[in-house]
Each structure stands twice: as structure tokens, then as C-alpha cells.
């Protein structure tokens, strides 16, 4: 397929962002689906400035999720302010899904769902309890 040499062996598990992280489902510590990974936040790279040799490489600081349907169809991406963060330090497992160590209800990314539950669903008769 290719005659190129393999890269020097890394000291940990390798993850390709598009292949292993982006678009993956995220579940909370109770395996309840929370969201999907729409983008990744990494430590800043100074634009238009030379990167010194040996400078620390960027690291992932957060998973980002938000309203990306329109931008995927028409291009671009939502403003940074519309993307909700899930701290990378809350990620405990990376596999078919990304698993978190926290409850989904504690995350800003689920605020629409919580608002719908508390303000609308709860006011419907029978909306306070599980279906029977």
C-alpha cells in the first residue's frame, strides 16, 4: 500500500481524531446517552508564529457539542459560544462510545433536555412519573 517507513513507536495508545473520537456517542457514568462529539478543544496554537522546536504539543482539553446540522450541510461551523464543553478529564473510557465519569444531568450540554423535562413535560398530566 505504501513504501513509507513506520513512524517511531509512541508510548501510549494512538487515537485518530476523525476515526476514534469525532461523531462518537458520549454516555454518562450510568451509560445514559448524553450527546455526540462534534468537535475537540485543544490547547492553543499561536497562529502566524513560529512553533519552537521541542515546544509542548497541544493536548485535548474538552469535547465540544452543539447545533452542527446546518453547518454540516451548508459548511462552516457554529460560533464557539454555541458549543458546549465536556472536560476531557471527565472521559474515562474510549471505545465504540466515549464514557464519562459524571452524570449527564450535571453537564451544560444537556440543558435543553432538562429544560424540556422540567418546563414542558412535567406540566403534562402524568408527566411526573415513568410510563406504566
Amino acid at each position, binding site marked *: *500500500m*505504501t513504501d*513509507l*517507513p*513506520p*513512524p*517511531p*513507536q*509512541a*508510548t*501510549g*495508545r*494512538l*487515537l*485518530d*481524531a*476523525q*476515526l*476514534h473520537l469525532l461523531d462518537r456517542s458520549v454516555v454518562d457514568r450510568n451509560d445514559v446517552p448524553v450527546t455526540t462529539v462534534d*468537535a*475537540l*478543544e*485543544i*490547547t*492553543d*496554537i499561536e*497562529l*502566524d*508564529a*513560529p*512553533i519552537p*522546536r*521541542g515546544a509542548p*504539543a*497541544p*493536548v*485535548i482539553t474538552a469535547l*465540544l457539542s452543539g447545533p452542527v446540522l446546518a453547518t454540516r450541510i451548508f459548511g462552516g*461551523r457554529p460560533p*464557539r459560544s454555541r*458549543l458546549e464543553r465536556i472536560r*476531557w*478529564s471527565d*472521559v*474515562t*473510557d*474510549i*471505545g*465504540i462510545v466515549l464514557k464519562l*465519569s459524571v452524570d449527564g444531568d450535571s453537564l451544560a450540554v444537556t440543558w435543553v433536555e432538562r429544560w424540556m423535562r422540567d418546563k414542558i413535560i412535567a406540566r403534562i398530566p402524568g408527566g411526573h412519573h415513568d410510563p406504566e
Partner: protein
Amino acid sequence: MILNDLLGLDVFDDRGERLGKVLDARFVLGGPGRAAPAGAAAGAGAGAGAGEARLEGLIISPHSRHSYLGYERLDMNSPAIINAILGWLHRGTFYVQWDMVERVTAHELHLRTGYRRFDPRLPPTPEGEGRP
């Protein structure tokens, strides 16, 4: 910074020759001194936390800015017709280490003098960790 801003950038070498676009970003989980357990396969858990994910390098494609199933990074070769099409689309794809990136601008990424091209494929693991 949002990682998605790096993906799709035009890549140039030190002489200003265009090499392609950033197809993906490869991270190493654990990082130096915090190597992931040897048997940490996808879905098997990565310990109490996933650990630091450090940018290890970039996958650059001269002909495409989209990955399509990761055929160029995994030892998948069937169905043959799909493999042939994607192999052709991703011909010339290579991997460069992040240390070899000299400068990033809003639209371009420049590599250092003497950068080396490596095989973009993920190293095989007995557990099939690299599978998407």
C-alpha cells in the same frame, strides 16, 4: 483552539510547495511516562481516567480532505472495489510528527526543513484497537 480548525488546512513544505491537506490528527493517550496499559483495547477501559491526549502528528493527503472509513490507515482491503477506489483517492497519504510543524496560519500549515514522511497506517494490535 478547536481541532477542526486544523483539519483541512493546506500543508506546505519549507520551499513553499503544496503537499496536500490535513486529513486527521493523531493523538497519543497517556503520553510520555503515562503509557496506557498494554492490553488497553478499545472498549476495555483506559483506567480511572482516559489520561492526557497529546497531539502526536498529522495525516496529510495530497488528493482528499476526507477520510472515508479510514481505509488509508487500517489494513482493510475489502470489498475490493471500495478498497481500490479509496486507495486511489488516498494515494500519497502520509503521516508527519507534530514536531515537524513549523507554523500554523488560519489557512495553511507549514512543515520544517527536513521533515520526514511516515506510513499513515495505525500500528497493528492483537486486540484490533485501531479499528474504528
